[in-house]
């Protein structure tokens, strides 16, 4: 009798492993819950503040996205506040696309060298170098941009040196390591037998790289580029230091321009919570948030397409 009871208790009791299991689940689930709460909180906060421009200040969304004058403190002849965000949106996209266009060939070239041509040297020299570049804080890039890139641009192209071109140069260096290391991963995930088959068919190494490896890795490479673009789009400090922060439609690459982030960082300290000027800045933040969402969706889409092939 006693023994069966004991046995029953022993069997029904959670074993040490089972307790650990529950404990682990609780910890990881609460971590997840916290992160979800933070993300939802941030999105909710930015959205509620950003939408206030349109709901409580009665700015039309269309004007906000298409008008070219950014002067939230001032009303125009019709009594409407001048909150045209188009110059900043254009500036942000221009600088993002240009830096991605410049960085991509270098990144893929580096990745090919590290992975296909000289894996030993690549692993020994380039790997640590790219990792180091990732770790440099953006303010350092901005400072170098301000003291090297801007004077150089001024000397070569005239003007003040501040502008999209300087911003592109700085962002190019900033996103290069991100794009490179992700491109390396993409090339590494191409199966070995693809290369072997190609070489066995008599293709040269370059033909193999160009016709087989790069083609097979295309989705991964595209993901790398989009990741780099997302980083460029969201970068604030370094860009703000070299772009000149003029909320004007960029007429040329050496004219001062502004990005969503640079207007945010220069303006947020000089506005009053709850005023139109402040709400308009929140709307810019909302645009940034939505754009990063779009970048994420693109990355997912590419990933899914890659898997289907």
């Amino acid at each position, binding site marked *: 009798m006693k023994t069966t009871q004991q046995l029953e208790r022993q069997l029904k009791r959670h074993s040490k492993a089972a307790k650990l299991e529950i404990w682990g689940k609780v910890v990881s689930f609460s971590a997840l819950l916290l992160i979800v709460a933070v993300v939802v909180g941030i999105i909710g906060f930015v959205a509620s503040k950003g939408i206030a421009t349109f709901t409580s200040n009665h700015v039309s969304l269309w004007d906000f996205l298409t008008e070219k*004058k*950014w*002067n*939230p*403190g*001032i009303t125009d002849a019709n009594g409407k506040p001048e909150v045209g965000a188009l110059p900043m949106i254009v500036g942000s996209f221009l600088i993002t696309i240009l830096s991605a266009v410049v960085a991509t060939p270098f990144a893929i070239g580096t990745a090919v060298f590290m992975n296909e041509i000289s894996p030993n040297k690549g692993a020994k020299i380039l790997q640590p170098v790219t990792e180091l570049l990732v770790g440099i804080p953006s303010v350092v890039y901005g400072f170098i941009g301000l003291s090297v890139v801007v*004077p150089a641009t*001024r000397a070569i192209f005239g*003007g*003040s*040196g*501040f502008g999209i071109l300087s911003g592109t140069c700085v962002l190019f260096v900033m996103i290069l390591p991100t794009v490179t290391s992700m491109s390396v991963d993409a090339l590494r995930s191409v199966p070995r037998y693809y290369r072997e088959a190609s070489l066995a068919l008599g293709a040269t190494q370059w033909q193999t790289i160009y016709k087989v490896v790069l083609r097979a890795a295309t989705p991964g490479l595209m993901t790398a580029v989009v990741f780099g673009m997302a980083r460029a789009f969201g970068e604030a400090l370094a860009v703000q230091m070299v772009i*000149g*922060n*003029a*909320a*004007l439609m960029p007429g040329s690459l050496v004219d*001062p321009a*502004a990005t969503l982030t640079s207007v945010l*960082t*220069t*303006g947020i*300290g*000089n*506005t*009053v*919570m*709850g*005023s*139109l*000027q*402040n709400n308009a800045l929140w709307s810019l933040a909302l645009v940034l948030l939505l754009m990063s969402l779009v970048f994420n969706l693109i990355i997912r889409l590419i990933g899914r397409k890659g898997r289907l092939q």
Partner: protein
Amino acid sequence: MSKKRWWQAIGAVLVLALGIFAYQTRQVSHAGESITAVGSTALQPLVEAAGEQYTGEHLGTFINVQGGGTGTGLSQIQEGAVQIGNSDLFAGEQKGIRATELVDHRVAVVGITPIINRKIGLKNLTTQQLIQVFTGQVTNWRELGGDNLPVVLINRAQGSGTRATFEQFGLTNHRSKTAQEQDSSGMVRQIVATTPGAISYVAFSYVNATVQSLSLNGVAPTEDNVKTNRWRIWSYEHLYTKGQPRGLTRRFIQYVQSPAIQKTLVRQLGYLSPDQMKVERDVHGNVTRLEGGNS
């Protein structure tokens, strides 16, 4: 297993130690009195220096000074989040601020001057010419008798107190053309010093040999001219409190306004003391001569 236990024990002790440390420091800062002043970066050096002196003389008090900009200072004081809001502007000039709730304490006067790159070779402009430059009617310095250089405008950020003062009194309420914006005076000076054809504006204390300050209508940007309002581009620096200040806030503001600070620190840091002024200006920009202002 025992090794793992050791690590766990070390971790637990660390967390505990941090917790105790945090608790202790919290206790300390509540044991004394502490106030926070937030806002204008133009006023920040003065309040910081005065705060350091004050806490040095009165042990157990803490005065935290933070920047953030005039807008931040005014909105934070309006919400009651801090004890003092630092501002370059009258609260009534800033949109979204209910100025009637705030009490103004003027602690300094700051003069602002246009600065240009030295290569332009100009030393004097008329107000009319200055307006033409900032509104984009003049695009090359040659038109005003300077060198053949394009005009490069550099503004402070929208909502900056320096910019608001400059546009109101330097450009007689004309708005500057949209151009480059920088969010600090130091940055502005550096850019003007290195960019041919650049023009901007900074407080007197930022002018040095790397840039050329401009006289306006033959009046030089000097402290004596500010005192008599012959140089019109100047503003008060305000410490705002929500309602009448009490306790440490009141004592600290009195300390900053006392002759001990006004005669030393204020002038050393490149500000003028309101006591030195021979005129007074109200929120609408109306200037009255002060009685008993001996020249």
